[in-house]
């Protein structure tokens, strides 16, 4: 099966990344603005268990 992602809805380089606040697997809430506070944040989206 081939699934195609629609890049039109994915924020491109140069654009502001959508803010988020999510609990991690230990229950601690993590925010994007905190992630980037030291200079660079790397956000990896992964498929997970499916």
């Amino acid at each position, binding site marked *: 099966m081939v699934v195609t992602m629609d890049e039109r809805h994915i924020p491109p380089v140069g654009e502001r990344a959508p803010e988020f606040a999510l609990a991690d697997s230990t229950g601690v809430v993590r925010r994007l603005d905190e992630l980037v*506070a030291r200079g660079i944040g790397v956000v990896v989206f992964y498929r997970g268990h499916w």
Partner: protein
Amino acid sequence: MADYSEHLEDFRAAGADLVAISVDDAARAEPVRQELGIKFPLLCDTRREVVKAYGLLNTAEKGGIAFPATFVIDRERIIRFRALEEVASRVNVDQLLGLVRELGRGGEATTQPRKRGVFPGWMFLSATMNALRRGVRSPSK
């Protein structure tokens, strides 16, 4: 995978912090984190709001899951680098390794044009993504 934390320290020394996001809840993500010895947070987007906000919701998979993707974001929340990976089917270790090498060369697995060297440790990052995928794709368990 054995030297994750070692490389993660390199990231942090370079001023970068790392999180990974999936639609898994904590009950699924936490065992993965522990099993792989991952030292960065695995965020649980069970409502799929963040995955949607980033345009990465793959509705073709049951319940809707995230397309694999990586963003490097600066202090002003500006996206400095983006890599999208369309890996819709299961891949074996050799294929994963090939993908890692391709990404390390700034190859076609990245959607942004060839900004190689833009971020140190890109190879490690790719390996991490693949490890996450490989580590959680174990339906036989």
